[in-house]
């Protein structure tokens, strides 16, 4: 009979955090601040501090100032962003704690830029929005990792965690493998925090790191999912380079010279919405494409984006180099010159459905989720993909908020009861995890492309209808049947096989939840149910495993207990 030691390297920790990006680091640091004696271990698929998205994004973080009014913030969000599917209590907490979280980040080595009066420098995405974007540099996670080490947080890099170990109903550890040597790694822990991101389907350059392994691990451990129908974020991209075209949503023109954006967003709105993507789709199908963004009229690109780059706001050496190089290469390769730039929808998805409570506890005892893994599952943002959830800067904001929120509860859980991993369970999981290495079969990149083919079409994932989604789901289920044939030749591609499997699972979650919501709300647009239906669908949609099947259920949003009601 196997022992844990016979399966591979065995690690122990009070608290295991999977993922060393901003959320995982915020949680690790907060855990040590909660209890300096707690033993915290952070595992990262590559290298903690370098991974994740926070150090490759805009370098802005949302915060509320008392002058903005928290009531104004919640009111604006509920009416203009999440359409009453927000957990309004959590949204209010997020706003209230945002200013303090800026100061926390600063105390952890993150450079928050301040004015002469000591106030955080900021910009607003739109002038009337009751929230602010502070700026920070892209070395934030490296500085946080350095700070975490000083506090005694332990790190192990290049370890890919695939599954969770359970003692009865309680999570008591995790199992995976080394990305370089392929050796099995077993972790015994009092509690586990998943901080390894959401599901982006790896289509967009740069933003493609998140493969959803944490979501899949949580699902296999029995965790409920929520808000999966909103995992369909689309960014506008230049057609030739696939580089993001900020602000295109307001200045889309067809070949007749008509501004098609104005039909659906006559005034400036808070960020990209799905309805202009539908306009794009209809126009292209009608033969009025390619659709161009008129860059001469692009308010966001011309007024807001440059504000981040002006020395008078903040000189951010790492961010400036990053954007200068990446955008510079794309611009140099651009084949179209002049203000009218052909654009197209680029799938980011941002499926983030792990259901969590206000302390970021999942429905499985001993298991927590933070950051992009659970943004939609927390229901903070409502009927939108998150991040950004039509609120730029909320990715870093929610990662910090959820990491800080989670730490005391996760430490308490880790201290309360240490389960004992079962060697036979671990042995069976190890066999499943490593199975692709012994096969000849489907290569992971082929599976990834096949999932992209089912998630990227606007008519499937963005402009939904029952018949098209059933067609898409059939394709997903056909791919699911091929998962047991995935084959890998080394640890890198073994990880890729598990990412591909996670993508298939994510796509199934998305379409199953979307089929049930027979209304249109936020980013969930149904051609066959074009109206919002508060009578039937002021509800959160949950997914749970039921003997291997994905069971869908609806749960009332407790609006009667909230300050704002439809």
């Amino acid at each position, binding site marked *: 009979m196997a022992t844990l030691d016979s399966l591979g390297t065995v690690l122990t920790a009070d608290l295991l955090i999977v993922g060393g990006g901003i959320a995982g680091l915020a949680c690790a640091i907060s855990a040590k601040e909660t209890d300096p004696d707690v033993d915290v271990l952070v595992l990262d*698929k*590559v*290298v903690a501090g*370098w*991974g*994740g998205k926070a*150090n*490759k994004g805009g370098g802005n973080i949302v915060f509320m100032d008392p002058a903005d009014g928290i009531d104004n913030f919640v009111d604006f969000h509920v009416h203009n962003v999440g359409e009453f599917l927000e957990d309004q209590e959590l949204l209010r907490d997020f706003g209230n704690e945002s200013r303090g979280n800026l100061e926390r980040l600063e105390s952890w080595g993150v450079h928050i830029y301040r004015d002469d009066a000591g106030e955080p420098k900021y910009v607003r995405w739109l002038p009337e929005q009751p929230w602010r974007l502070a700026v920070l540099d892209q070395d934030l996670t490296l500085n946080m990792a350095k700070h975490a080490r000083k506090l005694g947080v332990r790190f192990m*890099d290049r370890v890919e965690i695939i599954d969770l170990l359970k003692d009865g109903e309680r999570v008591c550890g995790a199992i995976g493998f080394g*990305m*370089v040597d392929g050796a099995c790694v077993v972790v015994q822990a009092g509690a586990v925090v998943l901080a390894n991101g959401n599901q982006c389907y790896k*289509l967009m*350059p*740069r933003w*493609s*790191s998140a493969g959803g392994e944490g979501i899949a691990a949580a699902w296999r451990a029995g965790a409920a999912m929520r808000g999966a129908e909103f995992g369909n974020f689309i960014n506008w991209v230049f057609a*030739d*380079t*696939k580089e993001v075209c900020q602000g295109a949503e307001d200045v889309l023109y067809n070949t007749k010279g008509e501004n098609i954006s104005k039909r659906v967003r006559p005034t400036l709105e808070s960020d990209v919405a799905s309805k202009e993507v539908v306009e794009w*789709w209809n126009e*292209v*199908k009608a033969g009025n494409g390619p659709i161009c963004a008129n860059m001469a009229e692009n308010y966001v690109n011309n007024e807001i984006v440059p504000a981040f780059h002006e020395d008078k706001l903040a000189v951010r050496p*790492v961010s400036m*180099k*990053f954007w200068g*190089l*990446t955008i510079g*290469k*794309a611009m140099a*390769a651009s084949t179209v010159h002049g203000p009218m730039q052909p654009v*197209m*929808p680029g*799938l980011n998805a941002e499926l983030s459905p792990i259901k969590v409570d206000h302390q970021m506890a999942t429905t499985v005892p001993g298991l927590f989720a933070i950051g992009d893994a659970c943004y939609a599952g927390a229901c903070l943002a409502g009927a939108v993909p998150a991040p950004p959830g039509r609120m730029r800067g909320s990715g870093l904001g929610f990662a910090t908020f959820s990491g800080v929120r989670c730490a005391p509860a996760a430490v308490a859980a880790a201290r309360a009861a240490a389960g004992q991993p079962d060697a036979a369970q671990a042995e069976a999981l190890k066999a499943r995890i490593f199975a692709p290495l012994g096969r000849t079969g489907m290569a992971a*990149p082929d599976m990834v*492309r096949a999932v*992209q*083919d089912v998630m*990227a*079409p*606007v*008519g499937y994932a963005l402009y939904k209808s029952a018949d098209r989604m059933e067609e898409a789901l059939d394709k997903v289920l056909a791919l699911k049947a091929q998962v047991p044939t995935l084959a890998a030749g080394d640890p*890198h591609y073994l*990880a890729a096989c598990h990412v591909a499997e996670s993508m298939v699972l994510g796509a199934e979650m998305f379409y199953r939840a979307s089929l049930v919501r027979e209304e249109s709300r936020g980013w969930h647009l149904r051609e066959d149910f074009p109206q919002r239906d508060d009578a039937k669908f002021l509800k959160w949609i949950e997914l749970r495993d039921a003997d291997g099947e994905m069971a869908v259920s609806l749960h009332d949003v407790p609006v009667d207990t909230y300050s704002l009601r439809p």
Partner: protein
Amino acid sequence: MNAIQIDRDRCSGCQTCYDACFVDVYRWDAEADQPIIAYPEDCVECNKCELECPEECIRVVPDFPGIYWPEVV
């Protein structure tokens, strides 16, 4: 596929590129103390290896036309 060019005469063997790559493109040749471009097909042109190289001896050449893009209409 993106190309990653390394001027190996100038490489100091600091491993920054190996650490900075978040999609596991690199492996490390301990004997030669040099990076190995093991999985260039997975490069997503974040450019971090190029940006962070203290010797400035790495260049990422994105293959924009080669980006796989499904039919979206």
